[in-house]
């Protein structure tokens, strides 16, 4: 286990380096420098500025400086919002994204596993059809279609909830975005949980447990649940990545001031450094999440020994 953990942790480094390097080089390949404003700067000022940001050095030295500042947790300065560093913007936006994205991921794991279990135990019941329906809708309809439909129904016709926006973590503004993300996640988790539990329940050791005369709840919770959860754990990694995508769209649909909105706005304003900083940050988070899921998988499944 320890040597696997060590190797798995080591493997994240090339991934991170690849993404950072490619993004950095792309940034450098684009024409135009940060100080090509409408007002021409005098040569002396320009030279000073370039020296301050190490722009007068050869590319590989600039790159090393960039890596060094990344290691110390500094994502750089924003092109457009003068006076703001990327870190300042992130600190304001991250709690919004984390509470919406992380919160709905937790809720959907609990709800999805629960619904999946009920659907597997009572096939062709109402819950079963519900899980299948959510799975079908979630896999075919894009989030930016489901989101507006939610707004139309609950904000415009029923007038129960605000159509979008954000007011300091007030619950009313969080319900619709979290509903959307939870719905999308449940569509995967519920389906996978249902399928894997049905498969496990038809295996030999469950038949033995039944033959011993164990009750249904003991069979499900003590014997069947753990092996049935393995496929669910393995989809949580990809799901976390696609949650990031869905969160970008969700924040755009409901105009939430989170990381996703920041990235989209940065892209629209061509705020290169902001987008680069945010991409690096989110990539680190995504790679770490994947690492955690893989390690959890190795810990849970005794069959896997690398």
């Amino acid at each position: 286990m320890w040597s696997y953990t060590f190797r798995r942790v080591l493997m994240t480094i090339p991934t991170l380096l690849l993404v950072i390097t490619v993004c950095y080089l792309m940034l450098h390949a684009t024409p135009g420098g940060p100080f090509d404003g409408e007002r021409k700067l005098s040569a002396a000022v320009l030279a000073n500025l370039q020296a301050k940001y190490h722009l007068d050095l050869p590319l590989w030295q600039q790159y090393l400086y960039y890596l060094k500042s990344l290691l110390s947790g500094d994502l750089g300065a924003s092109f457009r919002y003068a006076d703001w560093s990327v870190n300042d913007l992130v600190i304001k936006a991250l709690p919004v994204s984390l509470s919406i994205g992380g919160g709905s991921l937790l809720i959907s794991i609990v709800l999805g596993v629960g619904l999946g279990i009920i659907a597997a135990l009572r096939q062709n019941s109402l819950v079963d059809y519900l899980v299948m329906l959510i799975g079908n809708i979630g896999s075919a309809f894009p989030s930016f279609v489901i989101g507006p439909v939610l707004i139309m129904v609950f904000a415009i016709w029923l007038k129960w909830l605000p159509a979008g926006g954000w007011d300091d973590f007030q619950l009313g503004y969080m319900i619709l975005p979290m509903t959307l993300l939870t719905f999308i996640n449940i569509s995967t988790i519920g389906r996978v949980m249902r399928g894997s539990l049905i498969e496990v329940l038809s295996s030999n050791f469950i038949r033995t447990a039944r033959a011993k005369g164990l009750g249904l709840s003991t069979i499900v919770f003590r014997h069947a649940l753990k092996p049935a959860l393995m496929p669910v754990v393995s989809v949580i990694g990809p799901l976390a990545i696609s949650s990031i995508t869905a969160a970008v769209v969700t924040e755009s649909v409901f105009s939430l001031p989170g990381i996703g909105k920041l990235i989209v706005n940065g892209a629209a304003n061509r705020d290169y450094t902001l987008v680069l900083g945010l991409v690096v940050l989110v990539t680190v988070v995504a790679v770490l999440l994947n690492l955690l899921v893989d390690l959890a998988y190795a810990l849970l499944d005794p069959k896997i020994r690398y």
Partner: protein
Amino acid sequence: MFKMKQSSLADALSANLAAAPVQGRSPWRDARERFLRNKAAVISLILLVLITLACVFGPFFLPHTYEDTDWDAMSLAPTLQNWHLFGTDELGRDLLVRCLIGGRISLMVGFLATLTSVLLGIVWGATAGFLGGKVDSLMMRFVDMMYAVPYLLIAILMVTLLGRDFYLVVLTITVFSWMDMARVVRGQTLSIKSKEYIEAARAIGVSTTSIIFSHVVPNLLGIVVIYTTVTVPGVILTESVLSFLGLGVQEPMTSWGVLIQDGCGVMESTPWILLFPAALLSITLYCANYIGDGMRDALDPKDR
């Protein structure tokens, strides 16, 4: 007596065999029959073909163009008058034509990006599978790395830096859509390489080229076709997400994602501007998904 009867039966049988050689059933014909039996997949295919035809040829038969503004008919509800069947948007542009033109872009990006990513995936996967060893594990490690990357964000960065050209959108989508195909093709290549029928063909002296073309390629083709149809909806979806976020094609040119974004802004007063493109995109994705499922069932009967 009995003996004679038997031999005459054998004669008749052999005569019969000589007269009508047994019709072989190609696996492709089997697959086609299985696909045609799948009602949902056939209906989806017909719908998708109709939508594609409407997008390609429809705009020629309509009296409006996608960028003309009708100053007397802004934000018009769907009506028969003046052929505004889907109504008009807040600038007085005919929504039906815009939906069809947008569909052209969405489907064209979907088609092109699927083609490029499928080709890239096949070449990558087949190379890794054939070469094996260190090269294989290195190439597949790279695929693993690509999976761990939050692709939409890198796509946003690419579009921000490189511009919002049509072909750049195709390129951006390609970069993040080829990995599934590469994995599948590599796995299939590896398993075909060690199959008994390949060994048998070698043993009876079939040449390598003929082994590749009559045994390896046909067995690879089924899975390639399956994963191509599975790639299509994902690619169309990615294009729509990009253009929904304002990073795809630029006004006045449009695509379904752009139209949905436009519709979101005005859904309180004129909901049809949102509903029509959203419905078109959803139907297309739904059909593409069903066709993919039908293909999988038809071409891979073992895998149910």
